[in-house]
């Protein structure tokens, strides 16, 4: 039951983050910051899916670090390619 509540809380956070990223479209601030914010929200969502839904928090550390490393590397590379 506690595990279910934790998963539901993570899902609620993911839904809220999706709406926040969606709403940032209407915010007329610098595009580099806008791209960074959208990619940051996407990266955090992907990390949450990996950590909680894919149970990487219970996996050997190397597997979790490899996954987190992929998320961070792809997000930074995308931001650099889109903005710089």
């Amino acid at each position: 039951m506690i595990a279910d509540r934790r998963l539901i809380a993570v899902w609620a956070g993911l839904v809220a983050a999706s709406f926040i990223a969606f709403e940032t479209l209407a915010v007329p601030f610098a595009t580099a910051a806008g791209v960074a914010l959208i990619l940051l929200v996407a990266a955090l969502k992907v990390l949450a899916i990996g950590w909680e839904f894919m149970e990487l928090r219970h996996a050997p550390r190397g597997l979790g670090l490899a996954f987190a490393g992929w998320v961070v590397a792809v997000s930074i590379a995308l931001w650099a390619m889109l903005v710089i």
Partner: protein
Amino acid sequence: MTTAVSAAARPHRRIPGESGIWVMIAGDLLVFSLFFLTFAFEYRSTPEAFAAGQALLNRPLGLANTMLLLTSSLAVAMGVKAVGEADSSKARRRFAVGVACGAGFVIVKAFEWGAKFGAGIFVGSSEFFTFYFMFTGIHLLHVIAGLAALLWARALARQPENPRSARMIESSALFWHLVDLLWVFLFALLYLVKP
């Protein structure tokens, strides 16, 4: 004594699912990384053309599909927990919700593509839409394969106490979560970013 206590307090770590599924997940992540980076490179090369194509996408439908996949992933993760508790009927119910949300994603995507075809937009209409149809099409194939895996997991959940079944259920669930997380990046790149 201290060592024994700290060892007991340390959570037991194990690889979720079968090891082979992680090889497949790693391969998929690398292939999609190349897709994402190629898209970003081309977007940066011709931002006006890409922004014009992006403006024709139905963003609320993209958001709706995000919600469907997130909800589906939640149901599947809770289904795996129910398998761990050897509660077959609860697990099967939860996997059914996961399948229903996944099927909803396919229906919304079909509607979205149908609207594009109706407006005369196809693969090759522009560089943006070539990427759009290619990426969402490859992702849709993953969704369909994932739905088949979830139906299989639901069938296996009749015997949740069988360790081999439990492992295969976990592997199917992991593939489904992979489908979900790939969509999170696709949604951000295709529908949201405006460099």
